[in-house]
């Protein structure tokens, strides 16, 4: 992991802004305030499906302190969205498609007045029939949410690689099973918000809690018909995203409109209730898996069918359904693979990207089924996985190419560490151990621009400023870029300032998603830092009469190789550089995207979408209480091939965070919908997440080797680990008490019911 040749890479470091966060100085969107600022509030539809016929806001406007009301008639009706082919949002709806769908917004002098004004807006609706179940929504004659999508199928994704039928024929054993993964909230601790300042030149400046400022800029400009360059988005500290804050939200459009209308700054901060119920959730999926294996455990064919609940809008549907299928092909060699994915509109809260985007649900299904198959053919589940594990150099039948893959090692090392052989199958103790494997992209190739960029300026005193479009949402990418810069220039991390992201001053960037940031922005930073280095090395070489190739940067000094006494302090070199030649600045510019990827073929979906892939094994140990049905996760062991680790502290943080989140997903978390499609539990009192009391310690074993493409050989870890948490737990429960839960979340009732059923079956 750590290497002696590196001064920074591989060394555990707190985040560069940890002190600001620990002392309350870090500023999040809600902490900003502008003179004459108004407070904005959104009004949601009370109906799951209804056309807005008329709006009477006169009473609201008449209320003292209310400055403006806007509705769907104030936006252009120009659709925006993450994917060009699936744009279906306008900001404020003229046709509401779920309970809470924002249809109007108000700006007032304070929150109380704004809330009072919402009650005074009267809207006449034409209530339409609604549909809440995706399978119902797919039927002929079901209420249609969006005119363009018959039977409400917004993503219709199919793969057919190899010959699945032939593969099943060659199989000695075939299983078909059905699974369900529940809808879920991201639960970011910071509810999202936006502050917009609109000036006399027509320019909007927005501070907002986002994972992708450039995306918000694009959508805002589209929805309001204003030039892109008239919108500036600044990302302050963001209190978590987990995929939920990638996209533009109606609050962005509403706040911009209100600011324009009132010529005053407007801030909208979502309440927790809104944060859970009118942003994004994880898509519930029905997953059908059919897998055929030979006696020796070799997977011969797999068929996966998924029906995903989209909710009212598309969000990243085509990407999510693509990912759901693709992610099935990563961890194991599957010679024949067929997939049918359908994402279907319903009149409920909107599904969107969530850490592990589309991969969590099929992973839960496939990994559960693999354990069932292992039992059927009397094989150890670890051996079954090892038998099929992907290897370095593999190209999958769908075109994914693995330039590095240590999955076999991950399985071997983690089972050793967890004492798998010793702990498996001790049913009498009510303790069990289970595993799951997975893999994930390091940034999927999108259509159009995917590169990231970094600019580095060296200041006169040797301090260094890094400008990047990457979005740190708490995962620590600013620290990653500081560490890489410090490594290259031989300076301490504390001498590096990172400015990111601001659409006006930092390079254009797609955003934080798809586990792309270390891979892309890390490499862009590396390129920029090496440019700075070579500019400075040239000058140092002249000053010290050496060859530029022999110049080394370390300990804030610039040396001639082999002569520790011949050096110039870094700051002094920068100063001397200023007067060099005609006087010069030291500036580095890097931009990077992998060159070994292709956009998947539109028809067949063949193509290598990511420069590299991470691989992981997760082993959970649980104890089940047969009396109460309660399950306690005791221990988790992780073998993760995330390549060369840049910051072990951050990597552990991602791993521990994934284990924690997986425990919540397995047992506690789920968004519940009422008869009208309305969310029933949009509060932290009712939407439960794990606390320290439910958490389990996670131990990581080192398995990764430097990847040939990632910066210093680093790969992703932020998402790929979460996808294996839930199936490892579910498999461990089976090992403990012999019950298989196929519908999440695992609740004490489900465990007790299954135990009872098992007992009666055993007797009869």
């Amino acid at each position, binding site marked *: 992991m750590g290497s002696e040749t590196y001064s920074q890479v591989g060394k*555990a470091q*707190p*985040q560069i*802004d*940890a*002190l*600001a*966060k*620990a*002392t*309350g*100085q*870090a*500023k*999040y969107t*809600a*902490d900003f305030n502008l003179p004459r600022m108004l407070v904005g509030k959104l009004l949601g539809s009370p109906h799951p499906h209804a056309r807005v016929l008329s709006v009477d806001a006169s009473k609201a406007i008449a209320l003292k302190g209310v400055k403006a009301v806007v509705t769907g008639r104030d936006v252009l009706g120009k659709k925006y969205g993450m994917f060009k082919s699936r744009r279906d949002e306008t900001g404020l709806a003229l046709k509401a498609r779920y309970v809470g769908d924002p249809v109007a917004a108000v700006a007032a002098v304070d929150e109380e007045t704004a809330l009072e004004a919402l009650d005074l807006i009267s809207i006449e609706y034409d209530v339409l029939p609604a549909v809440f179940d995706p399978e119902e929504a797919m039927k002929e004659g079901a209420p249609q949410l969006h005119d363009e999508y018959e039977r409400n199928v917004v993503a219709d994704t199919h793969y057919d690689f190899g010959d699945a039928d032939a593969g099943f024929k060659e199989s000695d054993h075939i299983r078909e099973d059905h699974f369900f993964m529940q809808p879920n909230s*991201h*639960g*970011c*601790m*910071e*509810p999202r918000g936006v502050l917009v300042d609109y000036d006399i030149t027509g320019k909007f400046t927005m501070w907002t809690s986002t994972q992708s400022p450039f995306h918000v800029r694009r959508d805002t400009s589209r929805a309001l018909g204003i030039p892109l360059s008239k919108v500036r988005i600044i990302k302050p*500290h*963001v*209190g*978590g995203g*987990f995929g939920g804050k990638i996209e533009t939200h109606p609050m962005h459009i509403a706040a911009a409109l209100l600011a324009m209308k009132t010529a005053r700054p407007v801030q909208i*901060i979502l*309440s*927790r209730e809104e944060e859970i119920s009118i942003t994004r959730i994880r898509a519930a999926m029905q997953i059908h898996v059919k897998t055929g294996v030979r006696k020796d455990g070799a997977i011969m064919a797999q068929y996966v069918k998924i029906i995903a609940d989209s909710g009212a809008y598309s969000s990243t549907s085509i990407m999510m359904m693509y990912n759901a299928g693709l992610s099935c092909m990563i961890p194991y060699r599957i010679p024949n693979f067929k997939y049918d994915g359908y994402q279907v509109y319903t009149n409920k809260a909107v599904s969107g990207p969530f850490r592990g985007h589309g991969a969590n649900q099929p992973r839960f299904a496939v990994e559960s089924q693999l354990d069932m198959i292992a039992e059927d053919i009397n094989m150890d589940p670890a051996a079954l996985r090892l038998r099929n594990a992907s290897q370095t150099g593999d190209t999958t039948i769908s075109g994914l190419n693995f330039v590095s893959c240590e999955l076999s090692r991950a399985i071997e090392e983690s089972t050793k560490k967890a004492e798998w052989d010793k702990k498996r199958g001790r049913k009498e103790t009510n303790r069990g151990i289970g595993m799951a494997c997975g893999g994930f992209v390091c940034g999927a190739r999108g259509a159009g621009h995917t590169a990231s960029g970094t600019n580095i300026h060296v200041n006169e005193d040797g301090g260094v400023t890094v400008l990047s479009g990457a979005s740190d*949402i*708490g*995962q*620590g990418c600013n620290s990653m870029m500081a560490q890489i810069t410090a490594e290259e220039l031989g300076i301490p991390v504390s001498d590096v300032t990172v400015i990111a992201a601001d659409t006006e001053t930092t390079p254009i960037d797609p955003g934080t998603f798809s586990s792309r940031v270390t891979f892309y922005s890390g490499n862009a930073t590396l390129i920029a830092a090496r440019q700075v280095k070579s500019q400075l090395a040239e000058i140092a070489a002249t000053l010290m009469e050496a060859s530029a190739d022999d110049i080394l940067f370390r300990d804030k000094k610039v040396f001639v190789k082999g002569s520790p006494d011949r050096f110039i302090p870094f700051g002094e070199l920068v100063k001397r550089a200023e007067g060099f030649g005609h006087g010069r600045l030291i500036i580095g510019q890097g931009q990077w995207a992998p060159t070994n990827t292709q956009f998947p073929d539109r028809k067949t979906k063949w193509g290598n979408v990511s420069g590299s892939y991470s691989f992981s094994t997760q082993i959970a140990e649980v104890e089940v209480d047969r009396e109460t049905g309660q399950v306690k996760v005791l221990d988790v062991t992780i073998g993760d091939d995330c390549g060369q680790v840049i910051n072990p*502290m*951050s990597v*552990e*943080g991602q791993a*521990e*965070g*994934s*284990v*924690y*989140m997986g425990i919540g997903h397995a047992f506690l978390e789920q968004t519940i919908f009422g008869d009208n499609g309305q969310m029933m539990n949009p*509060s*932290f*009192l009712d939407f439960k*997440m794990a*606390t*320290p*009391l439910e*958490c389990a*310690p*996670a131990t990581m074993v080192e398995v990764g080797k430097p990847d040939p493409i990632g910066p210093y050989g680093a790969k992703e870890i932020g998402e790929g680990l979460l996808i294996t948490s839930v199936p490892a737990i579910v498999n461990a429960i089976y090992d403990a008490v012999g019950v298989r839960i196929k519908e999440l979340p695992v609740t004490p009732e489900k465990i007790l019911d299954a135990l009872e059923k098992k007992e009666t079956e055993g007797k009869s």
Partner: protein
Amino acid sequence: MKRELELNVNDELWEVNVEPHKTLLEVLREDIGFTGAKEGCGLGACGTCTVLVEGAPLLSCLTLALEVQHKRITTIEGLVEGGRPDPVQKAFIEHGAIQCGFCTPGNILSAKALLDRNPRASREEIEEALAGNLCRCTGYQKIVEAVESLVGSE
């Protein structure tokens, strides 16, 4: 009808003129300017708004400012003394217990109150004391380790 309140926050007296139904969280953030206390839920379910009142953790989103007049209120900003962070703040930094940071002020203050009251807190006691401070990023492991590192260290 607004009322004149006198609040003792971080060892300073603040006079504010606010509606009597304003919560302590609102007054701290909007009227005084200590934005370290965060509103994660506004309903007493997340702990991001935690402050100390007479050294004990209190959810400022559920507390009226008017109720805590003349009491010693400490926010995260008040733990810094002479430009130096408190040992609990330092431990959180050094142990990597901070990711997005939104839960951090609340977690640090709850930990501080625990350690002041029970400097030999066990792991279970730490977990229990922090159970009201949700964190979505870290998985709590490093938070608990940070607090554990201070147990019995004085």
